[in-house]
Each structure stands twice: as C-alpha cells, then as structure tokens.
C-alpha cells in the first residue's frame, strides 16, 4: 500500500478534499510510526508483530453503499434500525423521527449526504486517533461503519438498533462509527457486530467516536460477536459534555485476539459516565483491554465495572486507568475489575491504575480474581443441582451481576440471550 494507491482509492470514492487531506496526513503518520514495542507499557501483553497487517487492502467496500428501505422485516419496538455492511444495506426509521432530523445511516452514504455535520467531528478526532500505528492506519483507510445523529432536545424513547456485518470475503475491515447526541438529547443505541468466520486470520481496525453534548443522556451498547478468526485493534472514544451522562456497555463475545482502547473524556463540569464491560473468553481467545477515564473538568463522576470469565485457555488482560488532573476538583470515580477463572489453563491480569493530581477527590478501585467459590458451589449442589449445572449457574450469576447494571428491559434481555448463546457453545 502506498500513497498513490490511497489517492486512486479516494478518487474512486469521490471523497471531498478535506477528507483526502485527513487521510493522507494519517497515512504519513502510519508510515513514520513504528509498531508498538513490547516494552511499551500498554503493549506489554500483546505482541503487535503478530497482528496480520498484511490483510490490509483498500478495495474492501463497494464504493458508496446504497440503502434499501426495510418496509417490512425490521424488528419490533425500535425507533430505528440499520443493517450495515459492505454491500447494499438496509435501514428503517419511525417516520416521526426522520422528520425531526434524526439520522441513522451507513457511513458511505453519510459522507455524501451529511458531510457538513460529520466534518467537525472527523477533523477533530483525526489527531487523537494518531496515538499508535494502528490508530493512524484506521484514520488513513477507514471505510464503512455508520453515523447516528440525535438532534438537540430530541428524546428517543425506544432503542436504536444497528447490525454490522462482514462476509467471509472481507479479511480486512476498518469501519468508523460516529455517534453525535446533541444538547439535551436522549438516546439508547445498540450495535451488534458480527462477521462470517473464514479459514485464515482476518484483521479489523475499527474506530468509534461518541459525542455527548451538554446535558445529553446517552446509552451505547456494543455486543461484539465477530468471528473467532478476527484479530482486532480498535480505538473507541467518548466525549462527555457538561452535565451529560453516558452509559457505555461493552460485551465482548467474539474475536480471536483483541487490543481495545476505550477512552472516556469527561470534558464538561458535572459530566457523568458509567461503563460496564464484560468479556467471555474460551478456546484460545485472548483479550487485552485498556480503558481510561479522563476527568477533565470539575465535579465529574465515573463508575466502571469490568468483568471477565475465562474458560479453556482464555487469557485476559485489563488495564483500567482513572486520570484526575489538578483542576478536576470534586471528582468521584470508581473502578472495579473482577475475573472468574474456570479452568486451570485460563489466565488473567489486572492493572487498575489511579493517577491523581487533585486532592478534592474520591477515587477508588478494586480488583478480584478467583475460581468459583467452593462454598457457593456446595450450597447449590446441596439443593440438588449437578456440579456442571451448579458451575454454569454460578458463572451466569457472575455475569448477571454485570448485566443488571445495563438499562432494564430490551437491552438486558438482548445481553442475556447473547451471553447464554456463547456460554452454551
């Protein structure tokens, strides 16, 4: 891949000048940035040299996918629905919302129709996505993904559901997701990421940006069930404005190996963010997640609970940072990491970090790791549950304790169903 190739690709995609400039700058950064070394603190446990960068190709997506209106077949109880993929995609939206300016659309289409709305966010984020070689790669060659915009003051009661899907033929993908919830808006959005497994390793390098305007209330749920052939390096970032509240739920059920950066910046006074993460690891799958809560303004609140269940040879690394700079007075931030190890070959690492430069704060973290509690197991068995059943029940209870923190109803049901599916595999 070289500069000419990218230019030709952008020509074919008929991309605007400002985007071409962003991509070329990012590509330069990609070329001059070395692969992260194992000595680098955040890459100590993932050897970047093993990531199949050779999969990167530029002709992945059909240039400018087209929407097909889902006149029927969209799921019940949702405000809007989008199927996003490399070919023709489908969408549906409650008419009342589309009239009031709600946008949910495929990224390729959004670039044509809503470039003005997206441009400030894409330009603003390009630099932050330069934090390592993979972020630069994403910023240079991203394609596909989706765009959601909730207009100012608009309160969407039913959830918005997005299904992102990649066929076997796509061994590389770099989708970009942009969620913009404007001031005082309210929205719940669920994305399920899926991919069709192939015979050899695939490489994904997605980027997610969530923008919560002042006083917005946003719930973002990601259910990742991509194939067990995927190597994934993703950079996901949320910005939370003054008095806004974000609940971010991340359920990792798929991929072979992941390196995921989840960054939450509490940028306005009184901003609030909750994160609930859960990864289920089985087989030889591994997960390396770095989450950062950056308290950038006074009186912000953060609450993170990250959990992991590892079976077989599943390995997990979780590094959770809470950063409080000097001016962030009145910060209140908690982080909890819990791991359940269910087999002798399972492994886990926790690295919860506090970096505190202000003294008017309450910050706490806690981590625990262990096997199923033998007394709980005995209790369930004493009620007649066979050992296997009792162990499964306790593992699901461990998971349920996390799921219970998601918004009740539709979201929780969906999470439960997906966990049970993976668990019973």
């Amino acid at each position, binding site marked *: 891949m070289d500069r000419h190739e990218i230019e030709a690709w952008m020509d074919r995609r008929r991309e605007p000048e400002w985007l071409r400039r962003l991509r070329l700058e990012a590509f330069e950064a990609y070329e001059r940035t070395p692969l992260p070394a194992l*000595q680098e*603190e955040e890459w100590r446990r993932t050897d970047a040299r093993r990531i199949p960068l050779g999969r990167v190709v530029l002709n992945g997506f059909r240039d400018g996918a087209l929407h097909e209106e889902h006149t029927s077949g969209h799921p019940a109880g949702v405000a809007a629905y989008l199927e996003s993929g490399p070919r023709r995609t489908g969408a549906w939206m409650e008419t009342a919302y589309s009239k009031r300016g709600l946008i949910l659309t495929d990224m390729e289409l959004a670039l044509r129709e809503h470039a003005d709305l997206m441009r400030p966010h894409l330009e603003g984020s390009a630099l932050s996505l330069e934090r390592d070689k993979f972020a630069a790669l994403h910023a240079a060659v991203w394609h596909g993904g989706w765009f959601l915009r909730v207009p100012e003051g608009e309160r969407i009661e039913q959830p918005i559901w997005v299904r992102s899907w990649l066929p076997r033929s796509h061994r590389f993908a770099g989708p970009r997701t942009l969620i913009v919830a404007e001031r005082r808006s309210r929205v719940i959005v669920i994305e399920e990421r899926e991919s069709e497994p192939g015979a050899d390793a695939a490489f994904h390098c997605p980027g997610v940006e969530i923008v919560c305007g002042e006083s917005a209330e946003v719930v973002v749920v990601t259910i990742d069930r991509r194939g067990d052939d995927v190597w994934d390096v993703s950079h996901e970032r949320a910005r939370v404005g003054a008095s806004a509240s974000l609940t971010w739920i991340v359920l990792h059920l798929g991929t072979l190996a992941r390196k995921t950066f989840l960054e939450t910046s509490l940028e306005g006074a009184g901003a609030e963010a909750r994160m609930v993460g859960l990864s289920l690891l089985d087989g030889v799958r591994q997960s390396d997640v770095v989450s950062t809560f950056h308290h950038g303004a006074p009186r912000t609140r953060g609450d993170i609970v990250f959990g992991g269940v590892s079976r077989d040879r599943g390995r997990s690394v979780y590094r959770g940072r809470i950063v409080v700079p*000097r001016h962030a007075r009145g910060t209140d931030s908690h982080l909890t990491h819990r*791991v359940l*190890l*269910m*087999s*002798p070959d*399972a*492994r*886990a*690492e*926790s*690295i*919860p*970090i*506090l*970096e*505190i*430069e*202000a*003294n*008017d*704060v*309450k*910050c*706490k*973290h*806690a*981590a*625990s*790791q*262990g*096997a199923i509690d033998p007394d709980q197991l005995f209790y369930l068995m004493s009620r007649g549950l066979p050992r296997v059943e009792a162990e499964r029940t306790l593992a699901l209870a461990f998971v349920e304790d996390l799921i219970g923190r998601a918004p009740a109803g539709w979201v929780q049901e969906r999470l439960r169903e997906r966990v049970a599916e993976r668990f019973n595999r």
Partner: protein
Amino acid sequence: MQPLPSDLEAVKSLYKEKYGFSDAEDYVFKARKGLDERGVAEISHLKNEAPWLREYRLKALHVFAKKRMPNWGGDLSAIDFNNVYYYIRPSERSEDNWEDVPEYIKNTFDRLGIPEAEKKGLLGGVGAQYESEVVYHSLQEQWTKQGVLFLDPDSALRDHADLFRRWFGKVIPVADNKFAALNSAVFSGGSFIYVPPGVKVTVPLQAYFRINAKNMGQFERTLIIADRGSDVHYVEGCTAPVYSSDSLHSAVVELVALEGAHIRYTTIQNWSNNVYNLVTKRALAHAGAFVEWVDCNLGSKVTMKYPSVYMVGAGARAEILSLAFAADGQHQDAGGKVVHAAPDTRSTIVSKSISKGRGKTTYRGLVKVERGAERAKSHVQCDALLLDPESVSETFPYIENEEDRATLTHEATVSKVGEDQLFYLMSRGLPQVHAMNLIVRGFAESIVKEMPMEYAVEMNRLIEIQMEGAVG
C-alpha cells in the same frame, strides 16, 4: 477548607537541626569520583578480597554499563554517575567497643541517639555504618553463644566465607536491574546475619546508616539467613546531612527464610532531601516460612524501592507494610512485590501514602501467582491521602494470575482528609493543624503499630516533622 501553608524551609531546618549536621572529612581513604574498572578493582584490593569476588564485581560493572536506566518511576535524569564518590573508608577497622570508634563519628551517632537503645538492652545487636564502612559492630553474648552471626560483609567473608558465598547474590542476581548491578560492583558495608536452626532472637538487631560526605554514594549489602524454624527481627535507620548537591544510596538486601523461619525487616528511611534512594530488596520464603517487610519512607529526594517476597515453599507467607510520606520536592515511588510459586501461600500488602504540598507518592506493586500455586491467597490494600491541592498520588498495581484456584483481591482509595473528621476534631477544640496531625497519624497507625514501641514513637515524631511545615 483553606489549603494548609506548606513551608519547605521549615521542614528543612528542622531536619537539619536534628539529623542534617555534617562532620569535617578526615578519612583514611577516599576514592576519586567516578566509576571504572580500576576503581572497582581498588575497592576489592583494599578489602583484600578473594579473586572470585573481584571477578564478580568487575562482571557486575559491565552489566551496570549495559543496562538501561529505568524508563518508569522517579525522575533519575539528574543523577551523574561520574560525580559520585563510590568508596570512602572513614576508619581503619570495624570496632566492637564503642569507645574505640573515632571521636567525631562517635559524636555523630551519639547525637543521633544510636548507642542509647543498645545500652538500655532493647537491642540484641547494633551495627553502625559511616560512609562506606561499618565502624562499629556488636552482638550480645547471649546470641553469640547460640551461634548467631551479626557481622559486616568483610568480616563475614573473612571468617565465614563458605556460608556467605553459598547465599550471596542468589536472591538478587547481578543482572536483576541497573542499580542491583551497580551495588554488586561497588558494594561495601552492610550486614551479614545468620541465625541457626530453631534460635529465636527475641530482641531486634539494628543497623544504622549514615552518609556524611557530599556527593557520597553508599552501597551497602545485606544478607540475612534465617535457618529452619528460627526467628529474627532486623531494623535499619538512615540519615544524611542536607547538601545542595545530590548523594546516591543504592543498597541490595537479600533475605533467605528457610523452612518455618520468620524474618521481619523494618526500615525507617529518613535520608535528607538530596539523596536518591534506589534500593533492591528481596526475600525467599521456603515452606512454612514467614517474611515481613515494614518499609517506611519519609526522607530522600527520590525513592524507588519495592521490597519483595518470593514464596517458593508450600504454606509460605508474606506481609509487606509500606508507609510513604512525600513532602515538597520528594517523590516516594514505593510498594511491594509478592510471587506465589508454591501451594497454600498467602500474602498481604498494605500501603499507606501521604502526599503533602507538591509531594508525589506512587504505589507500584505486583502480585504474581504462578501455575500450581493452588489455594494461594493475596490481598492488597492501598490508601493514599492528599493533603494539599497540588499533591499527587499514583497507584499502579499489577496482578498476574496463572492459577485458577487462587483468590486475589485488591483495593485502593485516594482521598483528601475527610472534612467531617476534621470538623469533628475541631469541634472538640483542636486547632486545624493539630487535628490534621492527628488524622495523618491515625491514617499511618495500622503500620506504625506494627513497630516496636521505641520505633513507633520515633516514627510518629518523624511524621510530625514532615507535617511541621503545615504546623509552622
């Protein structure tokens, strides 16, 4: 609440008065500054060392040169290895009679109150190191009779060469880290302790370390072997004069607790604020053994020290209590490491850190459970107290687990002094500064109470001196 006034000068002058005086230099031997093969060979020559040890030192020098400076932890960029005296011999030999110690050194230790405790019979033995050499060493007859050894390394090498060589460098290899390599090349002074099987030394053995010269580097080496079922408590303290240029202290401490033995190692580190304190401390705990580190860091400019315990035998236990206080201009990067390498091992780490003014404390720790360490249990508790708006605290705990049947828990909190607590005390008539003092002492209490009475009193006084800037 108004931030408390922070007065660096007040603390400095208090320290200076109490510990920070200096003596005129009148040394038997003072090596030139800087570090090279010739200098290292000279130290070995002056000590009449066996060829193996000379080779060991020279090899370590090469490792030191090759190793990179740590790219984490405290800021060490101002250390100039060429501007350090690596070896100063203050007197001809180590005395076992206090009266024979050179007058000016005796005065120094008298002023620091060192021989007092020994006279009162509160200690089983005392060692005093001044610059690079141990100037005084004694062990009560009761313990010598039972075969306890408490010597400086030179004497140990001379009289118990086999025993010394069997364990020396086995717990902390030369190449462990850059500063362990440095110590291995130029070490001088320190303690060698051997406690025979079943002997329980019921009163602490104490060593006191004093740096006097400007730009001094002190590199003592301590090796403690507690044989089967024995018990020993070692206490060390350290101070230095206040200079405008920096000194370097880089010790290596190796502990071996054989089956069922118990070692407690207490440190009260009170270096002046111009000392880089970069120390490697590690213990091996065999089956059923119990090792405790009580590590208090109040002084120094930058401290990087993480006492560790490798539990290599079934049922071994480790406890690390770490207390750190960083005032203006100080960075205490402390913590602890425990490695569970055998079944039924248990560990506890408790860290309390206090940052005042622009002081910075870092807890850095590792809990590692190796596969096969079934039923291992570990709990870590870190609490940080920030006294002023500019105070900084960091917490970096690493938890690595390869054993599904292990139970590991970790908790950490960072907070300022509770307004409700402060209000409660003030409502009983205490002025704010005193209330603050009491709260800080209460915060440190769980660690201070683990010390013998005299040391606990001393600790509380040191905390008060650290707080003094606020009181003044």
